[in-house]
């Protein structure tokens, strides 16, 4: 199982912050596609950065069973 975190507008579209994928291994890019298929309104996930286990990760990075993958829309702190 891979845990997915969604924030800000992504969280609002999906209606919850956390979802789970049953994959054993999947790339960040594949997760994006999978989620957008599942939630057609989630197109903004394309422009979100991704983080695997709290470090930013490119689309090619592989997530494994037990990893935590977060999608981070453009930030606006400060």
């Amino acid at each position, binding site marked *: 199982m891979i845990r997915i*975190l969604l*924030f*800000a*507008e992504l969280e*609002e579209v999906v209606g919850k912050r956390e979802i789970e994928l049953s994959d054993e291994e999947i790339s960040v890019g594949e997760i994006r596609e999978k989620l957008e298929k599942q939630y057609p309104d989630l*197109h*903004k996930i*394309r*422009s979100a950065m991704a*983080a695997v286990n*709290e470090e*930013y990760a490119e689309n090619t990075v592989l997530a494994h069973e037990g990893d935590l993958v*977060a999608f*981070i*829309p*453009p*930030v*606006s*702190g*400060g």
Partner: protein
Amino acid sequence: MTEKNFEIVQEPIKIEEVISKVEDRNAGAINTFIGTVRELTKGKKTLYLKYDAYVPMAEKKLSQIGDEIQAKYPDAKVAITHRIGELAISDIAVVIAVSTPHRADSFDGSRYAIERIKEIVPIWKKEHWEDGEKWIGDQLEKTAYPDGKPNPEEVQK
């Protein structure tokens, strides 16, 4: 010492507490940047803001910004506290404190910190106006996404 130099908090930030974390016998200068909620942004009247964060990663990234400043100015001490939750006009959202032996470095470090926060720290604000609300994706006070979507070049990065 349980003092945390890089924190996301829910309660109002006490400015002097953040500053006290960077005090040092060899600091001659402390620069503090305080980000507050302003009422008007591009002519629109904000009623209140809501900040949310990916807390553990945000604290890690704040700490990384501190490391980046110390890589440049080895004698610098850095502390950053960012508040989340609902904030009213004039409330303090973030306090950055950077102490250095010489003043120019404290300005540079503090400026660097606020710019980096807007680039890499997973914190989001949602503005609430009289006629609506919106998550803001404006890291650098330059881009607004009126249609809620950055343009393609921005997506590439």
